[in-house]
């Protein structure tokens, strides 16, 4: 095996250094520190105690449940709504450029700002949402104050904010479908629904997969939006794994929260990797 070596491996060093220093080294260290009682200046090896303690956390079950609800709900909604929007926005609509920008705009805004804005909008009596509902005689719920509703309200905002990315990926996917298929379909006398079902959908598969994976990973490790809107509350009712870890970090339990991060890392890998494999198997080549 003779490879024509044009560039020296030494050229990899700068990239290798950056990758090693900023990604590899912290990752390895975090695995190490998750087994210690750590005060940032001092550490003591305590074996699996942090992991045991993390799993004993009383709000952990709520955290797991909420994380799954949040990840799968937002990923699902982003795919469905993103597809619908993408189909509309690839049609012959006159204002489609304007609408495309409007749909994408929330993606550009800081998550914290969105969270604060929506927590004002969702105020039970003075918020715009419930006042608007009031005009129609509907008594709006306490979106963020009701423990069983809070996580869904946050998920809704996350979809509003994230659907723009999904839409853009879908649009790109649909634009790359050759027109020949649609022409053939037209000659065969198929209707619009058929065209979507038999041409657009199967051929957008790579885009759909990308969106599902991105949205799932994003959802599983969401933190900022929940923290800005509810802080995991009321009580622990909208806690996610990530917010539990953050609270432990805040309390100065550095070893414990690092152990939590390792668990989160493993969890995301265990969930996403099989899905990724499964989705890729079903991809259709253009």
């Amino acid at each position: 095996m003779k490879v024509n070596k044009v560039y020296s491996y030494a050229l990899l060093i700068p990239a290798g250094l950056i990758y090693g220093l900023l990604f590899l080294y912290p990752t390895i260290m975090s695995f190490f520190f998750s087994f210690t009682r750590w005060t940032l200046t001092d550490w003591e090896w305590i074996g699996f105690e942090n992991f045991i303690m993390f799993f004993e956390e009383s709000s952990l079950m709520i955290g797991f449940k909420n994380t799954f609800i949040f990840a799968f709900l937002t990923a699902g909604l982003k795919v469905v709504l993103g597809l619908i929007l993408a189909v509309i926005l690839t049609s012959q609509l006159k204002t489609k450029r304007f609408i495309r920008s409007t749909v994408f705009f929330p993606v550009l805004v800081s998550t914290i700002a969105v969270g604060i804005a929506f927590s004002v909008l969702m105020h039970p009596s003075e918020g715009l949402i419930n006042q608007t509902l009031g005009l129609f005689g509907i008594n709006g719920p306490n979106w963020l104050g009701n423990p069983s509703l809070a996580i869904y309200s946050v998920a809704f905002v996350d979809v509003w904010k994230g659907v723009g990315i999904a839409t853009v990926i879908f649009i790109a996917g649909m634009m790359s479908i050759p027109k020949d298929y649609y022409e053939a379909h037209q000659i065969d006398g198929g209707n619009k629904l058929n065209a979507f079902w038999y041409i657009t959908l199967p051929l957008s598969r790579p885009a759909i997969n990308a969106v599902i994976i991105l949205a799932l990973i994003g959802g599983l490790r969401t933190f900022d939006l929940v923290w800005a809107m509810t802080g995991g509350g009321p009580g622990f009712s909208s806690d996610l794994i990530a917010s539990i870890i953050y609270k432990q970090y805040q309390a100065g339990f550095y070893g414990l929260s690092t152990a939590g991060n390792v668990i989160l890392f493993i969890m995301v890998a265990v969930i996403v990797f099989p899905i990724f494999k499964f989705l890729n198997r079903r991809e259709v080549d253009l």
Partner: protein
Amino acid sequence: MKRLTKKHILFTFMALLLLLLAACGGDDSNNESSDAAGNEEGTEEENPETTLTFLIDNQTVTDGIDAVAAEIEEKYNIKTKFEMRPGGTEGDNIVKTRLATGEMTDLMWYNSGSLFKALNPQEYFLDLSGEAYMDRLTDEFKEAVSVGDAVYGIPGEASSAGGWLYNKKVYEELGLEVPKTWDELMANNEAIKEAGKVPVVASYKDTWTSQLVLLADYYNVYSNNPDFANQFTNNEAKFADTPIALRGFEKLHELQEAGYYNDEESATGYNDALEMLANGEAAHYPMLTFALAAIADTYPDAIEDIGFFGQPGDDPEDHGMTQWLPGSIYVNKDSENVEAAKQWMEYFISDEGLETYMSVMKANGPYVVEGVELPDDAYPAVKDMTAYLEEGKVGPALEFLTPLKGPNLEQITVETGLGLITPEEAAEKYDRDVERQAKQLDLEGW
């Protein structure tokens, strides 16, 4: 070919490691050299002027200290150079690191109580117990800054208290009297509710405010069993199986069960609560008295109508308040300017110094210096507090007596206040939270 690759990878890793080491080393030496340079400048100056460095967190209002420091400079030619640090646990880490590496400033501002005692004061701070002004400080305060017979600090501000702020106008209108027992307080609440006002504000949007009913109840625990804090620290007493301690959670729950809280608790914030209290929409707000400064600032007309009482227990003869001790100033034992620092402290705590301090800062509570009267223009609520002090019915808050305070307490008290869990469940949950903290702190006996 293959070998070469491996070699290169190895080389890359070695280079990486070297770089890491170099980076760490470089940092340290930089720090040292810049610090050394700073010190030299101070000592090399030939004029008799001394400069004291003072490490303080950036959340404490320093107007009063600034004013006194300016006077000290004028009188004794001692300059004060402030160094800022963050507050909270991040600040703790800075303080601990600087103490451990011998780079502490001459003077230092820090909490009193358990946080201070956790610093291992014998090693780092100057014992002030021989100073003449020590007799003027109250025993509770001295206890909070002492280890053994040595006393290390002087109060840097007035004390504050946790209890119930109430609107005096509402009380007058409804002909109510300040309650001496929990039952009387609940009866007042009932009357207020019937009059169509909010009896108690719950501001759970700012979750930390939810803890006050529990924390301010500590006087009742303290007077029942002064040793609770010790037993709590040593894993011998728990909230769940100490009835008097459990009462705090129960009170939180009783208020909820009786419907005495405002609507929309979780959408109401600290500032909303102050507004409701100030304009008489609500009658009570369980809070720390530092809120008085905020009320005076935003609703200057209302501050005269705001009063204070400690959270009552069951015995009308034993109605006291839970006190939050002031932050303190300590002297670095290894400072080169110990004499100047002592002079600084002496002036700060002298009548003149305090007068200057008080002319700039309004107190959130009584001073812990004996013989220092509150000025006549003190907030009425602060004057209400002095009655408890005069009767000696004061207990420090639990956090001044133990290093343990579970980080999830505010979420647990929100859950209790919203009626999501029972007081017993809350106490058990909190005990578990504390247990985890004790284990992470590696305390003995856990």
